[in-house]
């Protein structure tokens, strides 16, 4: 079960996998995620559904190698099976014909932004997209984003390709130039989503973010993913993952993301060492 049917290196640390998961594919919608275990002893980790094929019964996951679980996942090959894939979880994006919308994908956030942009385009919206990453190596799916956007701006923090800028710069320019933006979606690392929200706030443009808190079950039973939005406690896995970016307590989210830094580093270091030993270095 949960066999890896295809694998693609999108860069040095970004990877794409197509997984056989018919029940998930059947129901998946833009904005949703799955909880994955790579191996039996593995952690349950949330990964957004970057794409899905209902007929073939497959889902596409894109992830960045940042720790033990993602490193282990990245080492698997076509034909290997994941220990478990549960989903689709989370509330889907509310897709309507809003008029003109802006979709901003930062780094690995491009993956969840793509199906949202696509669904918005299919619903008749004018979709203005911005994708950015720290450097050229971390950018991906430029062509796919272009195919679902009326306009696409590409940028890199270090200028290694396209425009040298943080995504918030073209975003600000768009907000200044266009007064008819109904809604902005901004997805990426927490700090990027925070500044995306701060950028749009003076313009009064509704901004939706997709929060990436730590999760365990993903179905609302534990509260590991809790955040504060508008002063109220919310569970990202069942109330989100999308929330109003102007209402999110970003400092709390980022503090809660750091709770297991020590254990994460230890696990990552141990695993890297184990891989080196196994490969006879």
């Amino acid at each position, binding site marked *: 079960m949960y066999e890896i049917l295809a694998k693609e290196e999108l860069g040095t640390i970004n990877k794409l996998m197509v997984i056989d998961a018919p029940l998930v594919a059947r*129901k998946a919608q833009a904005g949703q995620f799955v909880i994955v275990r790579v191996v039996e*002893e593995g952690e*349950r980790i949330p990964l957004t559904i970057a794409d899905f094929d209902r007929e073939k019964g497959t889902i596409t996951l894109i992830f960045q190698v940042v720790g033990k679980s993602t490193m282990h996942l990245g080492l698997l090959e076509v034909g290997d099976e994941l220990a478990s894939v549960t989903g*689709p979880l989370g509330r889907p994006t509310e897709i309507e014909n809003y008029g003109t919308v802006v979709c901003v994908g930062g780094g690995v956030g491009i993956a969840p932004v793509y199906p949202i942009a696509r669904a918005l385009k299919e619903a008749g919206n004018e979709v203005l997209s911005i994708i950015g990453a720290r450097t050229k190596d971390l950018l991906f799916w430029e062509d796919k984003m272009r195919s679902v956007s009326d306009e696409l701006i590409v940028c890199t923090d270090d200028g290694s390709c396209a425009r040298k800028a943080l995504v918030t710069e073209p975003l600000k320019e768009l907000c200044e130039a266009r007064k008819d933006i109904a809604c902005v979606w901004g997805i990426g690392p927490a700090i990027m989503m925070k500044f995306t929200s701060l950028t749009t706030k003076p313009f009064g443009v509704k901004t939706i973010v997709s929060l990436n808190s730590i999760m365990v079950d993903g*179905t609302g039973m*534990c509260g590991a993913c809790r*955040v504060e939005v508008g002063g109220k*406690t919310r569970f990202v896995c069942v109330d989100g993952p999308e929330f109003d970016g102007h209402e999110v307590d970003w400092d709390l989210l980022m503090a809660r993301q750091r709770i*297991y830094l020590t254990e994460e580093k230890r696990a990552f270091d141990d695993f890297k060492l184990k891989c080196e030993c196994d490969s006879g270095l």
Partner: protein
Amino acid sequence: MAEAKKPKREKIPRQEMPRQAPKVRRRNFNEVALGYTPELMMLEAKRCLQCKKPKCIEGCPVEVDIPAFILKLQEGDLAGAAVALYADNNLPAICGRVCPQETQCEAVCVLGKKGEPVAIGRLERYVADWKMSQGMEVPDYVADWRISQGTEAPEMRPPGGKRVAVVGSGPAGLTCAADLARYGHQVTMLEALHAPGGVLIYGIPEFRLPKATVHAEVEYVKSLGVELILNCVIGKTLTLDDLFNDGYEAVFLGTGAGLPMFMNIPGENYNGVYSANEFLTRVNLMKGYLFPEWDTPVRIGRRVAVVGGGNVAMDAARCSLRLGADEVFIVYRRSREEMPARAEEAENAEEEGIIFHLLTNPVEIYGDDNGRVRSMKCIQMELGEPDASGRRRPIPIEGSEFDMDVDTVIMALGTRPNPMVFTDAGGLERTRWGTVVADETTGRTTREAVWAGGDIVTGAATVISAMGAGKAAAADMDRYLRDETATWVLEPEPEEEAVQA
């Protein structure tokens, strides 16, 4: 056989359960209760008077024929005891460990009137463990047993029954699925998590209920012909409507009460504040106590406060100790007498060195610059008049606030049903507490061909009452499925009007 058998039985005292010593067990996750030896088992079994009108059976929520299996023990027929036990109870290794026998079968045992009741739970556990150690196959014997006993209990019927979906593989679901399979139906159990057992696997710790035991009982249920699908969340992966569209003709909902409650006091979202659900899931289901061999971490500081007074609070406190906390406190707003935890578990906790701060309630949690818990302000309570539940209401004593120096807080305040199952489940009515409206006897909900049992109906309760509900529902489901003319009627609740679909 001795001539003076009767007087001899009365003189045998109730046999103590061998346990790990507190100083040793407080730092390991091995099972605390070690189980009877064959000698202890025989001594205890001999105490049973084999009453002509046994009260114990009525005290059991699944009506195990207790005298029957104990008789087999007295005769030295362990296999016979196993068959007699499994005839009525699909999960005796679990019941023998976690049932509150002191309020059920043992509470009404005749011997308890003047002395100590028969240790029925410990004997049940012995038989179940023995059966597992033998790898004994039971299903075929059960049918013969029932026929030989001439009981009204359901006999094995030929396959060709209907397709039934059981949502949740906790105690209610496992029991319902096993009985339905015995009745001849094609049963599929759908579990949201990646391992079956529900609260048996994520909630109750290893040292009270070894996961290997849960696994073995689940394998037994599967051996009856039940299909198990994991990682399937009803309300997300599939909905109730989907199940009927996919061809299931009846559905049992045993999704439990998995939604954690928080106090909503300031500071509750600091790092180091857990719901008991999260803490126990990390420790038990994800084996956090084996980090880093197992990947999921669980961070316990040095001084842990567990807020609550039920079995879950005791479990959370005892796990905290075993994870290496220097000091663990139970913080409970009422007095010891009102604590809902099993007396045995509270005593175990105390023996292990957990400190009880009773008549104490948290007010606010304080954090440091890194967003980590550093202390908790509490207030002393006193008991006033009884509230709706009959227990005396705790009232804060003004000016009695004090700071508790803790770095971890676990909220074990109780749980409610997860609302996810109600997505695309038209016709399924809920109460204002989020539980499913269901007939008390049959488990019928307001939606035709949908039954429910366990915590999703009652709110958080016991493993055994969930099993009783699963059993009752399975019997009603079988009757309904085999009767072409059956109509969907719920018995009227005493205070409410009858509901008809």
